[in-house]
């Protein structure tokens, strides 16, 4: 192992990690929003939109992110839709993640007994109040572990961004392997930087899950 090499290229990896995290979290935020919209559409049974959401969820869940990105990045410009790699990355992650987030929200909503809603109504709460004060707090607590799991899943999926020439961690590692044939060092740095990004989220996830179980939710 060449320690000089490692020291020299840490800044390069740091830059790449920042890019990975930035696009990752932008994409995840968009995915959560999209998932919430899908779940709301489904919950209120909005006529036409409900169908659109169902089709989207099937398309998103049954195709790989890499193929989605290729279509968005190389295919769509031929229709005149031009964007840059960063926007494509965020869009791809949102397209993939939206359905997973929607599923997580739905599992939370479905886990609540109908009696909660009925009791809220019989206490005289309006529909909005019922959702805001009774259903949403319970649903969010139940779906929290699934949401965190999705965040980790999506952060891991960002590794394919190098295919649309975003200079993320994978791209940097591959570049250095190709340029200097420094395979071991490049891969060690790659693993370390991914651990730095993913471990905190993973630990947060398991702490949260334990707390929620302790609080008696999610049973």
């Amino acid at each position, binding site marked *: 192992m060449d320690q000089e090499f490692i020291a020299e290229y840490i800044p390069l990896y740091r830059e790449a990690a920042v890019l990975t995290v930035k696009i990752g979290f932008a994409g995840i935020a968009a995915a959560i929003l999209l998932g919430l919209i899908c779940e709301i559409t489904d919950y209120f049974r909005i006529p036409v939109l409900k169908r659109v959401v169902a089709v989207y969820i099937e398309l998103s869940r049954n195709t790989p992110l*890499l193929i989605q990105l*290729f279509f968005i990045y190389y295919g769509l410009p031929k229709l005149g839709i031009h964007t840059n790699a960063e926007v494509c990355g965020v869009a791809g992650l949102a397209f993939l993640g939206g359905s997973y987030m929607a599923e997580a929200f739905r599992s939370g909503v479905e886990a609540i007994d109908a009696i909660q809603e009925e009791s809220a109504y019989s206490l005289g709460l309006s529909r909005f109040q019922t959702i805001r004060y009774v259903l949403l707090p319970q649903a969010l607590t139940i779906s929290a572990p699934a949401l965190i799991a999705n965040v980790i899943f999506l952060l891991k999926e960002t590794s394919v961004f190098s295919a649309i020439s975003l200079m993320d961690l994978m791209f940097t590692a591959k570049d250095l392997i190709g340029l200097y044939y420094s*395979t071991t060092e490049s891969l060690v740095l790659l693993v370390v930087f991914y651990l730095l990004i993913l471990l905190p989220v993973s630990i947060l996830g398991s702490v949260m899950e334990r707390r929620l179980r302790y609080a008696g939710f999610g049973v």
Partner: protein
Amino acid sequence: MPDLGFDTLLKGKNFARLLGGLGVALKISLVSVLISIVLGTVLGVLRQRENLLLKAVMKLYLEFIRIMPQLVLLFIVYFGTTRSFGWNLPGETAAVIVFSLWGTAEMSDLVRGALISIPVHQYESAAALGLRKTQTYLYVILPQAVRRLIPLSINLITRMIKTTSLVVMIGVVEILKVAQQIIEANRMSSPNAAFGIYLTVFAMYFLACWPISILAGKLEKRWR
């Protein structure tokens, strides 16, 4: 309507070549899934044991596999081990190794989950009836666990198929690589082919995974 490359698809053997590319991806997934199901079941049962060393080793393996992106694992096996150990590993073999490692971890989670979901009184009743440990597992626990497992393992197949799309990144010629070749070759005659070809690839992946997802969903509902 501009030419979006759907004609290119029908030229020569292009469509058949794409299907062949999909075949490579499906073959890698299928082999990996079979290995994963066997090893994952063994590992899932082993995780029930109270051996501390065994637990520590398995925890390390599972956590590492779970937290690393599959593409990183592919790079480690394809570029890393070949450099460190000096052996020669074809891309497809590297892919099968990585996806089996990953699938085994996933499968062992599913198996453990299914085993835990069996109520304790099943174990206790079996013991009260005088069944040995192997008998308990073989005749009481596994038959019940398998019912819960089958839909989940079918789901693992679709996840595996989706994940194998990554092998193009270590130079395996599969559907995406063939698509790139077709687009390159027809750059002059059909400059917009990228749209049609990549849409076709997207559709092919969808058609490969969707029926399996539906089957898994149906089984899950029926056997719940």
